[in-house]
């Protein structure tokens, strides 16, 4: 069921006012945020003003848009008019406020949605965990002793906690997919360059994308379409005879057998037993890592020259090292990117969809931040992205499918299609949701409007 349609229908019909809805979610944030630290700023004045405007439009018989009065939150790297875009860093705390909303936010507001909060992230989006040295660690709403993932952890956790109907994040090497998986919500890394990036503070322009987190697949499509400027609220029935393959090899190593079992169940649904071991996955992952290091380092170099001590030390040292990476290494990484894109494109002549896990297991514990790689416990901070980084190079759209299990923490799967085939991902997501295989884990909030 679409929460966005439910909210906007109730507001349009006058059952609730936009003011009621916004106040409800502002109260939820106030009650819940101290336990999960997903929200960094509450935009109360702007939100209530926008709600008043929506209510006035409705009262005068005008159409407020398909997202009428629906509140949302944004990762702290999207420009919001009149607000400082911190990118999760104290380096920017005295920056000039943004003169206008980021392009995707403009589109959502024109459709009637109301931004009510900015959301926690790893500093400058350079992480997979959301451990922010100023705002704190964003905790997983399903188990607050565990991480929410990152770098869009605040965005995923807020939707999973039921304190926002949807949120926006960004994905360079996994920063939508990983928190979506660990928090058990729907997310999508759209086709590279399919979303306008004006007003989004970058990390690595070769890989940066922006996308939403939602409680269900219908809402994900609605928000994605509005952001892309292609709004069409219907999800078509799934085409028959889809050719689907599971990514094996690298993408099976150290993965919890329960996750692999769900992938197997989905493969049975598609009547497919095809498994592909991608070539040069390790090299693709490294290429993605080096491109991010070099592009991020170059971007930050002018600021590092002036304010090196204002950065979180870990972020700073990685950016400085990246700025020193030789051009020959960067160019070799770009060559691998080009090769990998062509290679994946060849596979998509044979297949419609490729399926892989998002992470190897459930969310790591905050006091034991490790994942398993080649049978050894290694840092989750640098290694939890081993199944997402290489796929970022492809430029393809990747859906993060939430799998909920009673009494256990959720996990997520990646389903990838060829560029600009997001509609296929939404169709597959809808089918998996309808069959009960995919389902978001959303905490039920006790308060009601």
């Amino acid at each position, binding site marked *: 069921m679409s929460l966005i349609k439910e909210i906007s229908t109730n507001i349009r019909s006058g059952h609730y006012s936009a003011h009621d809805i916004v106040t409800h979610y502002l109260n939820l944030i106030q009650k819940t945020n101290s336990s999960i630290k997903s929200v960094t700023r509450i935009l109360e004045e702007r939100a209530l003003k926008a709600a008043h405007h929506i209510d006035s439009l409705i009262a005068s018989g005008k159409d407020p848009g398909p997202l009428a009065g629906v509140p949302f939150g944004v990762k702290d790297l999207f420009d919001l008019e009149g607000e400082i875009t911190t990118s999760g860093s104290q380096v920017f705390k005295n920056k000039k406020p943004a003169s206008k909303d980021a392009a995707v936010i403009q589109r959502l507001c024109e459709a009637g949605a109301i931004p009510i909060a900015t959301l926690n992230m790893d500093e400058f989006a350079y992480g997979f965990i959301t451990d922010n040295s100023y705002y704190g660690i964003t905790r997983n709403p399903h188990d607050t002793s565990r991480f929410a993932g990152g770098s869009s952890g605040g965005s995923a956790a807020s939707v999973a906690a039921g304190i926002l109907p949807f949120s926006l994040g960004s994905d360079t090497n996994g920063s939508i997919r990983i928190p979506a998986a660990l928090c058990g919500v729907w997310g999508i890394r759209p086709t590279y360059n399919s979303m306008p990036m004006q007003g989004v503070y970058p990390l690595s322009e070769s890989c940066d994308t922006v996308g939403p987190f939602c409680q269900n697949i219908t809402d994900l499509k609605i928000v994605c379409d509005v952001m892309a400027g292609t709004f069409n609220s219907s999800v078509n029935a799934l085409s028959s005879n889809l050719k689907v393959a599971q990514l094996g090899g690298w993408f099976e190593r150290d993965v919890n057998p329960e996750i692999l079992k769900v992938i197997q169940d989905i493969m049975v649904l598609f009547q497919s037993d095809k498994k592909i071991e991608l070539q040069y996955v390790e090299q693709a992952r490294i290429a993605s890592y080096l491109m991010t290091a070099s592009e991020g380092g170059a971007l930050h170099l002018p600021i590092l020259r002036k304010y090196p001590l204002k950065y979180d030390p870990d972020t700073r040292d990685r950016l400085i090292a990246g700025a020193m990476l030789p051009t020959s*290494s960067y160019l070799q990484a770009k060559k691998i990117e080009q090769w990998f894109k062509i290679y994946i494109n060849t596979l998509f002549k044979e297949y419609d969809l490729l399926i892989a896990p998002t992470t190897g297991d459930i969310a790591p514990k905050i006091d034991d931040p490790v994942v398993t790689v080649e049978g050894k416990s290694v840092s989750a901070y640098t290694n939890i992205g081993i199944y997402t980084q290489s796929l970022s190079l492809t430029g393809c759209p990747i859906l993060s499918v939430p799998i909920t299990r009673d009494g256990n923490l959720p996990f997520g799967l990646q389903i990838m299609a060829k560029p600009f085939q997001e509609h296929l991902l939404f169709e597959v997501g809808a089918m998996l949701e309808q069959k009960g295989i995919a389902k978001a884990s959303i905490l039920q909030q006790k308060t009601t409007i």
Partner: protein
Amino acid sequence: MNNFSAEFIDKLSKMIDLKIPQEAFKGVQHNLQFLEDYSKIIQECDLNQPKTEEPNI
């Protein structure tokens, strides 16, 4: 073993006109070693020759 001496990092930092704070030195040294190890892996990667003759489909 870390291949990046203080002197070498100092020369690199001059090339990019960046004065590295003293407290950043160890972290930068650690990350540079990481980047070097990764760079070696991809420099050795011969993309003209696929690992297998046929795509592994």
